[in-house]
């Protein structure tokens, strides 16, 4: 019996298999994502070149949907809102989150409790956040009427029903929700700053402020970047919050591209136009993400 031979060939098969085991293990997840993310993106891209209305249709008609999209005031409003919302949401969340983290890092006795208080809004869904804030910002029952009831008769806080300010209401609620999470990110990062360097600077006589501005915060650059990317993609995905908080109103003053896409695709039987707006959203995401991923992974390879 040529057993050794058979055994060794058996072994090589196993060896080969086990050599490719990592690939095999990743494969199901990767294939799922290939199909359910990239397949669907391609599908959407294709549909954006068709005249799909009630249901998807597959006859290509060119760029017409994009021309229509760019000619629509509603799209302009939605896209401008995204810029305003994104800018304020990201900046404020970063600033507040960073500030709170630095403050909490000052050997605060009740750190655990405070941290939980700042973090809990992240646990709550946009629908609940929207409902709660809508209620508080309602001029006739909420903060405005409360402060008036205290005696300040002329107090006004009616942004939620003001077409120019409604998008800022969305910003407030969104920052309330995300800034605690950003705080947690920064706090974790602060804890992993190299204390030797800090100590050395201290011995050199640098002030606390200087140490933070000069040494600690710059070393947090990667966290800034991570937080930025997380917030940026959250702002592009934002949909539920607008639905629950302002319903996109007054008029369509506070709609975001995600709401636009939903409205066109589902409510107005304009699947093709909705797909075109989705492609624009994807391009926006890609414009932020691709350079980030590229620099990250390049950096990793060198490291």
């Amino acid at each position, binding site marked *: 019996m040529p057993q050794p031979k058979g055994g060794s060939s058996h072994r090589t098969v196993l060896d080969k298999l086990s050599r490719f085991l990592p690939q095999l293990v990743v494969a199901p997840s990767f294939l799922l994502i290939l199909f359910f993310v990239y397949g669907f993106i391609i599908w959407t891209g294709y549909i954006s070149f068709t005249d799909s209305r009630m249901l998807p249709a597959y006859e290509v008609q060119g760029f017409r949907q994009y021309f229509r999209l760019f000619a629509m005031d509603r799209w302009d409003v939605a896209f401008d809102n995204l810029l305003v919302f994104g800018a304020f949401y990201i900046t404020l969340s970063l600033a507040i989150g960073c500030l709170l983290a630095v403050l909490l890092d000052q050997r605060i006795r009740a750190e655990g409790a405070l941290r939980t208080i700042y973090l809990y809004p992240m646990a709550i869904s946009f629908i609940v956040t929207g409902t709660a804030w809508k209620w508080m910002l309602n001029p006739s029952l909420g903060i405005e009427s409360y402060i008036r009831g205290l005696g300040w008769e002329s107090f006004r806080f009616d942004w939620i029903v003001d077409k120019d300010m409604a998008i800022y209401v969305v910003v407030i609620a969104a920052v309330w929700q995300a800034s605690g999470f950003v705080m947690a990110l920064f706090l974790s990062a602060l804890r992993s700053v190299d204390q030797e360097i800090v100590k050395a600077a201290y011995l050199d006589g640098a002030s606390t402020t200087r140490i933070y501005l000069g040494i600690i915060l710059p070393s947090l650059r990667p966290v800034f970047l991570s937080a930025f990317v997380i917030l940026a993609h959250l702002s592009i995905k934002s949909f539920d919050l607008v639905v629950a908080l302002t319903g996109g109103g*007054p008029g369509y003053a506070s709609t975001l591209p995600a709401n636009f896409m939903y409205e066109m695709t589902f409510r107005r039987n304009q699947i093709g136009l909705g797909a075109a707006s989705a492609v624009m959203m994807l391009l926006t995401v890609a414009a932020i993400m691709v350079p980030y991923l590229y620099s990250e992974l390049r950096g990793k390879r060198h490291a």
Partner: protein
Amino acid sequence: MVQSLFRHASAVLLALTTHAAAQPTAEVLHYWTSGGEAEAVQVLKNAFEDAGGKWVDAPVAGGGGDAQAAVLRARVLSGDPPSTVQIKGQNIHQWAAAGALRPLTDLAERQNWDALVPDVLKDVVKYNGDYVAVPLNIHRVNWLWANPEVLARVDAKPPTTWEEFNATAEKLKAEGVIPLAHGGQPWQDATLFEVVVLGIGGPQFYKKALQDLDAEALTSETMIKVFDQMRKLSTFVDPGFPGREWNLATAMVMRGEAAMQIMGDWVKAEFLSAGLTPEEDFICVPTPAQNGYILNSDSFAMFKVPEDEAGQGQDLMASLVLDEELQRKFNLKKGSIPARKGVDQSGFDPCALRSMEDLEASEADGSLVSSLAHEIVQDGAVRGAFLDVITQHFNTDMSSQEAVNLLAETVALAR
């Protein structure tokens, strides 16, 4: 294999809710979630269950059906549409054109729907000569609802012209009362708009502008006047109006915080469900106009479904809906008037009787028009274009001229 595996969980759920023996089943997708509407649905549900059917309720709340449209599309694409769907107007035709609806020809012949269904509704529920939906009711949109006590405070009667309306509203405002209860959602803004178009332009202009989308009519002097009146109306609402549901606006009239509301007669269902009496606690009059009737109608469309139980459920549902007694009971709750001829008028309140009378008159003199806000006269795309401009004008300081220009442009873009 994968299919059967995944199906397992849902099958268990279904098994828990269905009897072993085949029972006609109807999954009913609708957006009737306000108090009065829910009572009306209950009437349908009871009748269906009494006839041996199983009613699976699938309500999608919010925005006059905005959310429902998304659910419906996803369900159709997944090959598992709800069997019975409350849709209306152009949507019925478009779903029929997409081949998603089941023609009800046999049943219609057996029950002789051609003789039962009023002519005005046939266009709505028929596609290529086949019935593809069964009408439930006829709603009138151009109603003005008022709280008589509040009007009495300024010695006003319900206005019959827009000048009167404006004068009364100014007086009410000076009195510290909100003249017009309104909810700032695009479809509600559009309801005001179409009522004003009918009032200022008349039925023929309404048809030209909103039905034929005639460019001249859309940019005419008359349309500018319409937007002028819309601007006036925007000064008669309270600051908290954006986003408000229509029935909360109705509640403001009930409580006397506001004097009037312009809205279809589903409002009446809210008044009645709160135990109020027409002509005593609230008044209904047609909105200021020479004549005319803006029609809105709800229907059940039957989507093509694979299962037998669902098919039987559709047959049962479709055969019940036009039943005389059911039509009476349902419409008494819903605030509308029956969608079939020859229903006993006893029990209907003065508002409903007026609606029946005016419907007949407007059919005779050609002043019957179909609602834009409720998607009867235009499809989702064109209606949406109108809504965008109307709501943008209503909520900003856009001039009437700008609005008219934008309207012509946006509507052309959507076609």
